[in-house]
């Protein structure tokens, strides 16, 4: 691997869990058909919804994860201590570095985006493809629609 190359996370995590004696590698989600939809209105007229994999409370490592919704406010605190972000290289003390509410509000102020939806949607990092496809994603979709969202920005940690 050249130093400048992006990290091969699938290969890296496979080797990491194999070293722990877990021989069955995780099957990452894969779709050959990825639909493309052109926005029906300009971004400057659109309401943007924000989706994060952080949560509104500090989850324990084995705690079941669920879809959650939080009103966007200045002091909104989000947690992701149970997720596998790079804890030796960085931190999550600055919410805007992983859930860019402030930067999106700046885009609204500049007229780049029409509105920011009033809630941030928290979608679980779920190993089960079925749980994501059949429950979590549809649930988040409904909550985005309830907020009048036209376009959604997904920012996984």
């Amino acid at each position, binding site marked *: 691997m050249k130093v400048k190359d992006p990290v091969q996370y699938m290969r890296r995590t496979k080797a990491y869990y194999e070293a722990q004696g877990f021989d069955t590698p995780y099957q990452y*989600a894969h779709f050959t058909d990825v639909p493309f939809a052109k926005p029906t209105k300009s971004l400057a007229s659109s309401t943007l919804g924000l989706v994060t994999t952080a949560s509104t409370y500090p989850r324990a490592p084995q705690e079941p994860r669920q879809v959650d919704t939080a009103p966007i406010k200045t002091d909104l605190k989000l947690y992701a201590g149970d997720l596998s972000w790079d804890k*030796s290289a960085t*931190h999550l003390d600055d919410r*805007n570095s992983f859930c860019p509410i402030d930067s999106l509000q700046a885009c609204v102020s500049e007229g780049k985006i029409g509105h920011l939806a009033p809630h941030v949607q928290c979608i679980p990092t779920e190993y089960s493809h079925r749980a994501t496809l059949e429950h979590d994603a549809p649930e988040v979709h409904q909550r985005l629609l309830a907020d009048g969202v036209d376009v959604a920005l997904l920012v996984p940690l």
Partner: protein
Amino acid sequence: MGSALDIVQHCGAARFFFVDFPLGNPCGKPWDRTMQDHLVSAAVELFEAADQSPTTVYAREDWGDVGWKQRYMAVDDSNRAELAIKGAALRRNRHDRQKRIL
């Protein structure tokens, strides 16, 4: 908008703004509001700029130190034995939890 290029491209995403930073800060370095505003502004442009799926745009920003790329979940002789012990403990805990449920 994210930092795991291979995972997102393997899954498939209509529009992806890739920021080659350590996992956890896909929107820019902590406390660097100028960088964050620039990255997020560039990311949302994809809603209108992309005209086909999949479209990936690579942010030009540099984290600076590149050591993190080698360190993340690295396996070598310095931690191989420790990881084997950790894995055995995880399996024991999982087995014990299942026994309690039954």
